[in-house]
């Protein structure tokens, strides 16, 4: 060990002062020669002869010095830097080659790094909690009824928390929006309604003040609130004396006890302004706490260290059986599932991102194949240089090392340029990304992503550098020297490799083009889909009523009635209505229902439909047609008999061969849960869940009979959206100056906004496919034009012997044709395999859509033909005299 360190130390000395060591050695050798000369003279040689003999005896001084350098220095490192310097010189001498190679690589590395930064931020980066891998979301599930996972009732949750031995801590939460007043404009603030343990569960201490105590969670405790740092800095100007002050949420006073730092997020995906309040203080959820039947509380737990997932599941199974035994009405048939928190929130975007990552990886592969081809071409024309080096005594490994250093320098240059591209790309990406994706704001090129980019560059250098270097070092020395270098014939083997690379590029490009084509077709079909209502000229806005002030359904109805009366009396705004929830842009409320006179549905074959509460003019505003019966009208008020409309799909699905009109349905939903409602009309189908989802069963009830503590207003008007929005705000303010109007938007925009993710995917994949196509075309062009320039002589002879220009063109073109056909033949199965991975992202397009496959194959063939045509035309015009003299 010590010897090793000493050797390193003495070697490092050389490293720092190579000149001094070298001079010392020269001096030593000089003395040696002098001494030897003297000896020779003593033996009787004439002085000149003596000196010459001494030199011979010592051996070649240059070689001695070289050996000495190698022995004394750090040979690998030193030769690497030597090689790198040499490589930079060589690359500078071939600016065209260098620019093309670096640019190609930069595109590949840049695109990969940018996409990886997104993948890293969304999928890989650990959640900002202490030991996030121990955190799980715990669900109640009813697999046989298709309920994969839902929330808990508070009573069940409290029992689980007390009785289980596998979670060290558990907390419940729900989300809500409350109206924050008394601070300028009334605003709606995102509120997380939680049990007090959440902060210690996630391991976060407050920036200011304290977290909730268990006393805060008990009934009768004083209302307290914790603010997010963002809200504190924004709305409250980072007031250091904020603690102890109070704010009004839904017109009720809450004392501020703490501020949470910005890094803390709960719910996981929410950033920015938000408050946390104890569950008991929430106007809605606190009243639900006593029941056992509901499934509304989200439960998060921290698994004890050393407890396996299997052990935990066993204990939870036992618990759910116990619950079912004790409270069969609420709990029979329910099991418990738990899912890692991280997995839960990336689930929706994972497959899309992985497809993009795969696509961009293919682009890099194509780029590497291209550069490898360029290098092979160059290695062939450098055969003479390499032969000379070998003759002068460079070993094979030394040559390979030198060539690899060259590709390494190339790789690093490309990598650096790629990183620069990635910085720009990430900025572009984040502005393009749908804002509802998780962690959008966390996407950046940080050190981890940089490390990835550098690693990728190094790997890419190996990928495109190794084969050419090995080929070059193996070249036949004698033939290279004899045939005069630049014009020497290329080995069949090497030509095959080049051809295979070009064909491979076409195959990879085909995979990407097919994927992009399928997504594009699917997206255009989605865009063309009719949602069943007309979104043109509709302005929407949300008004949410504070529940401490507006606490009864009568008040809610009165509010919406007055608001609609006021809006409809505004000029040009006669078509105004209220709806909860809106199709597509809001969530949907799916309820099980019973049909009077039919046997109750078993839980396995339950009847469900989406529930919507609307004011009478809703169907006229949205242009949803009446199919049979009548629409809701102004007589369907709370005191009148309960009525409902159903969608055509619901009529088809649940009333086959019957007339649903006059039948009664009932469902469990407040205010009058379980009351029978007469079906008075059938309306047209609407895609209310998503544009890409077929219309399902829907039932509409009069808002006056089933109001909400808020209303989404929809107004169809020829006026500008700004003046409609202003009119809505003005009227709401006149009714109650403390009511916020939020989410004002054109309905067209928000419906199109629901396509943001597929749009983003399609755009990026299209971009990558275009890059792949361009790279593959360059590849073909390179191979063919190189082959033409090699064969100039041959072509000249052929022409001289009477070959027609057309036959020359055909000959060169045949090469393109072979490359392209091999590429397409390889690409077709690969593309078919890859497109099946897209499966669920496709709408109304089959993964092996023949039209797409055909178009892609034709496009590729055409582009390849064009890329091959340019050199072929050059070949056709070869002048035999020039070509023959060329040698």
């Amino acid at each position, binding site marked *: 060990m010590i010897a090793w360190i000493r050797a390193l130390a003495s070697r490092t000395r050389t490293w720092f002062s190579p000149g001094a060591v070298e001079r010392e*050695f020269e001096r030593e050798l000089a003395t*040696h020669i002098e*001494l030897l000369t003297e000896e020779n003279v003593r033996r009787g040689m004439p002085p000149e002869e003596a000196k010459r003999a001494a030199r011979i005896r010592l051996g070649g001084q240059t070689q001695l010095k070289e050996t000495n350098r190698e022995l004394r220095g750090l040979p690998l490192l030193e030769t690497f830097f030597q090689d790198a310097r040499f490589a930079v010189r060589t690359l500078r001498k071939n600016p065209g080659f260098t620019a093309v190679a670096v640019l190609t690589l930069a595109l590949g590395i840049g695109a990969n790094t940018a996409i990886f930064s997104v993948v890293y931020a969304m999928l890989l980066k650990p959640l900002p909690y202490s030991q996030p891998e121990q955190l799980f979301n715990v669900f109640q599930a009813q697999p046989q009824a298709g309920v994969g996972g839902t929330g808990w009732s508070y009573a069940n949750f409290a029992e689980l928390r007390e009785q289980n031995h596998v979670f060290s801590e558990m907390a419940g939460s729900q989300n809500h929006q409350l109206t924050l007043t008394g601070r300028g404009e009334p605003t709606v603030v995102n509120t997380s309604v939680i049990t007090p343990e959440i902060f210690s569960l996630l391991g976060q201490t407050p920036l200011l003040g304290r977290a909730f105590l268990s006393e805060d969670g008990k009934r009768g405790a004083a209302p307290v609130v914790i603010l997010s740092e963002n809200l504190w800095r924004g709305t409250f100007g980072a007031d250091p004396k904020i603690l102890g002050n109070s704010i009004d949420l839904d017109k009720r006073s809450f004392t501020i006890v703490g501020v949470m730092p910005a890094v803390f997020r709960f719910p996981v995906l929410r950033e920015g302004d938000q408050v946390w309040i104890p569950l008991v203080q929430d106007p809605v959820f606190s009243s639900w706490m006593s029941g056992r039947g509901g499934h509304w509380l989200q439960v998060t737990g921290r698994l004890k260290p050393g407890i396996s997932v299997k052990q935990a599941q066993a204990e939870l199974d036992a618990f759910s059986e116990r619950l079912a035994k004790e409270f069969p009405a609420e709990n029979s048939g329910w099991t418990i599932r738990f899912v890692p928190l991280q997995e839960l929130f990336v689930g929706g975007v994972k497959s899309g991102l992985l497809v993009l990552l795969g696509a961009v990886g293919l682009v890099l592969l194509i780029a590497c194949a291209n550069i490898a081809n360029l290098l092979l071409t160059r290695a062939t024309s450098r055969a003479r240089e390499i032969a000379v080096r070998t003759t002068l005594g460079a070993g094979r490994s030394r040559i390979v090392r030198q060539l690899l250093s060259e590709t390494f320098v190339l790789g690093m240059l490309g990598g650096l340029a790629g990183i620069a591209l990635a910085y720009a790309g990430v900025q572009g990406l984040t502005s393009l990304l749908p804002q509802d994706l998780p962690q959008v704001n966390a996407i950046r090129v940080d050190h981890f992503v940089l490390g990835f980019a550098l690693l990728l560059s190094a790997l890419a250098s190996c990928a495109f550098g190794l084969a050419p270097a090995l080929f070059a070092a193996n070249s036949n020395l004698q033939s290279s020297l004899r045939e005069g270098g630049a014009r020497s014939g290329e080995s069949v083997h090497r030509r095959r490799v080049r051809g295979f690379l070009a064909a491979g590029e076409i195959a990879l490009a085909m995979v990407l083009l097919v994927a992009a084509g399928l997504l594009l077709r699917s997206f255009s079909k989605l865009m063309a889909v009719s949602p069943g209502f007309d979104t043109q000229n509709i302005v929407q806005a949300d008004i949410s009523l504070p529940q401490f002030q507006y606490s009864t359904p009568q008040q809610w109805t009165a509010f919406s009635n007055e608001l609609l009366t006021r809006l409809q009396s505004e000029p040009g705004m006669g078509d105004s209505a209220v709806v909860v929830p809106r199709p597509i842009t809001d969530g949907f409320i799916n309820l099980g229902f019973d049909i009077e006179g039919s046997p109750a549905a078993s839980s396995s074959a339950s009847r469900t439909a989406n529930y919507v509460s609307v004011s009478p003019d809703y169907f006229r505003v949205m242009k949803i047609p009446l199919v049979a019966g009548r629409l809701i009208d102004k007589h369907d008020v709370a005191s009148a008999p309960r009525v409902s409309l159903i969608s055509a799909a619901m009529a088809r699905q649940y009333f086959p061969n019957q007339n649903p009109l006059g039948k009664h349905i009932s469902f469990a939903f407040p205010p009058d849960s379980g009351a029978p409602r007469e079906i008075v009309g059938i309306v047209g189908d609407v895609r209310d869940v998503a544009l890409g989802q077929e219309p399902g069963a829907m039932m509409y009830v009069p808002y006056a009979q089933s109001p909400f503590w808020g209303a989404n207003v929809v107004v169809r008007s020829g006026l500008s959206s700004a003046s409609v929005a202003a009119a809505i705000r003005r009227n709401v303010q006149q009714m109650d100056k403390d009511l916020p109007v939020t989410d004002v938007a054109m309905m067209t925009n928000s419906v199109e906004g629901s396509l943001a993710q597929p749009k983003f995917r399609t755009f990026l994949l299209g971009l990558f496919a275009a890059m792949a196509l361009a790279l593959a075309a360059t590849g073909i062009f390179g191979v063919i034009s190189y082959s033409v320039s090699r064969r100039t002589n041959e072509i000249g002879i052929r022409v001289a012997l009477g070959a027609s220009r057309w036959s020359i063109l055909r000959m060169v073109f045949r090469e393109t044709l072979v490359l392209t056909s091999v590429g397409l033949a390889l690409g077709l199965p690969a593309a078919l395999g890859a497109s099946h991975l897209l499966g669920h992202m496709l709408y109304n397009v089959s993964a092996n859509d023949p039209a797409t496959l055909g178009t892609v194959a034709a496009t590729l063939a055409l582009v390849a033909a064009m890329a091959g045509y340019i050199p072929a035309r050059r070949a056709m015009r070869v002048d035999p005299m020039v070509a023959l003299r060329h040698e």
Partner: protein
Amino acid sequence: MGGDKSEILQGTLDLMVLKTLDAMGPLHGYGIARRIEQISEEALQINQGTIYASLVRLMHKGWISGSWGTSENNRKAKFYTISKAGRKQLHTEAQNWQRISGVIGRVLRIAERS
């Protein structure tokens, strides 16, 4: 790079250099080369330059040290001295060498007889 020159040859030269320094005390490169030639009764006509590679190797291992001094006819020359570790190494190596050459000698005798 000399990677092909067998380890044994290099090791042999190193061993000879060590033995020479052990027997003669501090010597410069030329002196060592001459001494080895004389001892081998001029049978080993080495390329004198190879001595220097051997010297660098031995220095790296810490078995010899070098310092500049004045030669017998007033020239500046680098003198090499064997170190304590070098003596120990010489001792082990010499034993090894004798054992191996003994074995090889026996094997060769057996081969001749059969």
